[in-house]
């Protein structure tokens, strides 16, 4: 991508050079300087905000070799937090994917009253602070809450246990799939779906064989964002979980707890694991899209 871009730039500057041999070099120089300046600022900003702090965490984690890191990782509470985080992601992300695709179809293809309101509601989790979401969940599902009595009678514990944490995670990462899918769905249009229906495909066949493959980039991207957000969720889960060590402590909560207990290596190590998980998600998406894209283009 970058090579083709620079190729076209070289081409255009070459032709201006021929057209105006005297004025061109200085204009070229100014353009190059401008471009360099923009790049420096962009990279500098990224380095300051993102790369430097993350690099610091990696450095501090491995500062004293691998033994303390290994000890921190194999600590039972750390292990528990790691698997709990994955469990919550494994439930919340598929739920949000199905919900998000359905919502995208409804908002983009449906014709009904209150569509604008629904579109607004979907974005609400972005607008509301996760802490507020956590509190709201406690109010609704907690012991003294609105559904508390009914839940207690039926022996279901939502707050201070995994179901509540899954709900909290699902809410904060709710909009991603729908928001990433809607524009792709719009671009896809309805022609191909209509063509499928005239060829005898049922609604279900059309969805699986035409619509879903057509929107898969949007869905994949939405899933990656959802996963990253779900993995890192702190505020809402922190309130809903009650932060019981070895029971309702996810990886981000574990990082916070270690940090507060002056177990710096434990905190940094868990943070690095968290960062690696997020990184792996991004890489997985990249490989996935690259492979399937090659299929369609080659």
């Amino acid at each position, binding site marked *: 991508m970058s090579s083709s871009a620079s190729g076209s730039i070289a081409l255009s500057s070459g032709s201006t050079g021929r057209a105006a041999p005297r004025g061109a070099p200085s204009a070229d120089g100014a353009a190059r300087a401008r471009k360099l300046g923009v790049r420096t600022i962009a990279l500098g900003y990224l380095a300051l905000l993102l790369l430097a702090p993350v690099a610091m965490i990696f450095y501090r984690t491995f500062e004293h070799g691998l033994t303390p890191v290994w000890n921190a990782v194999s600590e039972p509470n750390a292990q528990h937090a790691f698997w709990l985080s994955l469990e919550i992601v494994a439930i919340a992300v598929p739920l949000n994917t199905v919900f998000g695709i359905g919502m995208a179809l409804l908002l983009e293809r449906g014709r009904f009253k209150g569509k604008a309101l629904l579109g607004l509601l979907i974005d609400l989790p972005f607008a509301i602070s996760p802490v507020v979401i956590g509190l709201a969940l406690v109010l609704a599902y907690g012991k003294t809450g609105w559904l508390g009595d009914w839940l207690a009678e039926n022996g279901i514990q939502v707050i201070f246990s995994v179901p509540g944490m899954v709900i909290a995670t699902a809410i904060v990462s709710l909009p991603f799939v729908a928001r990433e899918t809607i524009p792709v769905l719009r671009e896809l249009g309805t022609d191909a779906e209509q063509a499928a229906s005239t*060829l*005898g495909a*049922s609604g279900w066949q059309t969805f699986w064989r*035409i619509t879903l493959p057509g929107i898969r980039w949007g869905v994949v991207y939405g899933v990656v964002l959802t996963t990253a957000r779900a993995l890192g969720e702190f505020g809402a889960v922190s309130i809903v979980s009650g932060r019981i060590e070895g029971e309702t402590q996810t990886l981000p909560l574990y990082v916070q707890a270690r940090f507060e207990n002056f177990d710096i290596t434990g905190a940094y190590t868990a943070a690095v694991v968290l960062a690696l998980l997020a990184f792996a998600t991004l890489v997985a998406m990249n490989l996935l899209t690259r492979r399937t894209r090659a299929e369609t283009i080659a």
Partner: protein
Amino acid sequence: MAIEARHVSKRFGTFTALDDVSVTVDDGALMALLGPSGSGKSTLLRIIAGLETPDEGEVVIGGEQVTDTPARSRGVGFVFQHYAPFKHMTVHDNVAFGLSVRRRPKAEIEARVKELLGLVRLDGLAERYPSQLSGGQLQRMALARALAVQPKVLLLDEPFGALDAQVRGELREWLRRLHEEIHVTTIFVTHDQEEAMEVAEQIVVMNKGRIEQTGTPRDLYESPSNEFVMSFIGPVNRIGDAYVRPHDVEILAHDDGSATEALIKRVVHLGFEVRVELTLPDGRDISAQVTRANAAELELHEGQILPVRLPRPRVFAA
């Protein structure tokens, strides 16, 4: 199979797309729905296909009431203006789609796809993706895909609208020959009168949600039933309430008493034909169409004043 639309009306909000339209297409016919944009021709086609629901009226295909039958069960082949390719599938899979959703045996699908790709001259491109095809190839793929399920009728919505002039010309002729070969009842929508006249046996001229006239290309050209049809089918000069075709305007070498004088404003050479733009004594502009030989003989040039005669002007009752 014959297609009938009876008293079909369709409104989109306050806009009336179709206003009590009835059309009959005979079994095996090749018919054009011709009209300007917004005339309702595409809406009528989509209603016949089952992609839109009429507010009133009914659709009958092969004697069978299909008004409430969903598109997928109507047995129509539909070709979209922008081809509607399944972009994530190869040409082969596109063409095979209709058979594969019907769960036909693999051997049958393979044989049929091969046959159709041959018919639309896309053999050898079966493993390509739509992004690797030209517009004309995409259109032929869309046609093969529609024909794969052996539709009872074939419906084409502006099939050549998005192609360049040369490809369009080739495909028109090809469609005509294809129709002679497979003889499936075909309706195609177009806004291009030349295309309609070249391809169709019957033309339905539509305007503002109504049918203006139905007939053979020759009928429409020679006996248009109203001024809309006259001016939509072929070029026309309007002189007061009368209409004259440019090729009916005669430019004479000598005034024989029946002519009026006109000033030549411009002479446009279009190959075999020459278009002459004239100004009449009352200030009205008209154009005349003469052959190249004729123009040379009269030595037509700008600024010349010559006698012209306007035979056969047509007046329509208001």
